[in-house]
């Protein structure tokens, strides 16, 4: 069966520090991978998506970047965090466009 792993579950980082969040998928090949951010009590904002290794599409220009070094690995990064980067970061995958399976998410607080 397919599973998606996302870590860490919570993270507190100072302003100006770097960020690296990792997401891995098991049990499927060539998945479409996505990074979403959710502000407290708000909806889901698509940040990046990838349909293959090395292919990254950015939805919102901002302080973040994404990379896909392997088929089932998706990384979200920042060189210098801002207070506004705080939120709930969710990785998701889909195959053949039939719905998303989300990871358990990372709650990031920038202080």
């Amino acid at each position, binding site marked *: 069966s397919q599973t998606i792993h996302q870590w860490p579950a919570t993270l507190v980082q100072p302003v100006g520090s770097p960020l690296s969040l990792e997401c891995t998928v098991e049990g499927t090949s060539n998945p479409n991978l996505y990074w979403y951010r959710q502000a407290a009590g708000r909806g889901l904002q698509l940040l990046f998506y990838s349909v293959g290794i090395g292919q990254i599409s950015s939805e919102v220009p901002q302080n973040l970047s994404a990379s896909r070094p392997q088929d089932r690995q998706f990384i979200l990064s920042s060189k210098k965090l801002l207070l506004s980067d705080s939120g709930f970061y969710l990785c998701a995958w889909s195959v053949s466009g039939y719905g*998303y*399976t*989300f990871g358990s998410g990372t709650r990031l607080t920038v202080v």
Partner: protein
Amino acid sequence: GQQVMQIPQYQHVQEGEDFTTYCNSSTTLSNIQWYKQRPGGHPVFLIQLVKSGEVKKQKRLTFQFGEAKKNSSLHITATQTTDVGTYFCATTSGTYKYIFGTGTRLKVLA
């Protein structure tokens, strides 16, 4: 770009009462998906509808896609405390992406 509006934003119901959330678009939708996010959790896929007028049921949940494929509804019969959470609709935007509605946050009072 394509947008989907969801109403209401919040809903408080007494346990045992029914609940409905609506998802509306100004353009024809190719499909509609529904997700549930429990407090503190991540969204979980519930169902996808693709056909005009389609109705699907999952126990106490009834999902409907409008005849014109511009709206959808999720109806919960006799809510329980386990139904608490935020319900999102989503639809395909382009080839690989989905856009989400703003969500309806449901609270069930015991």
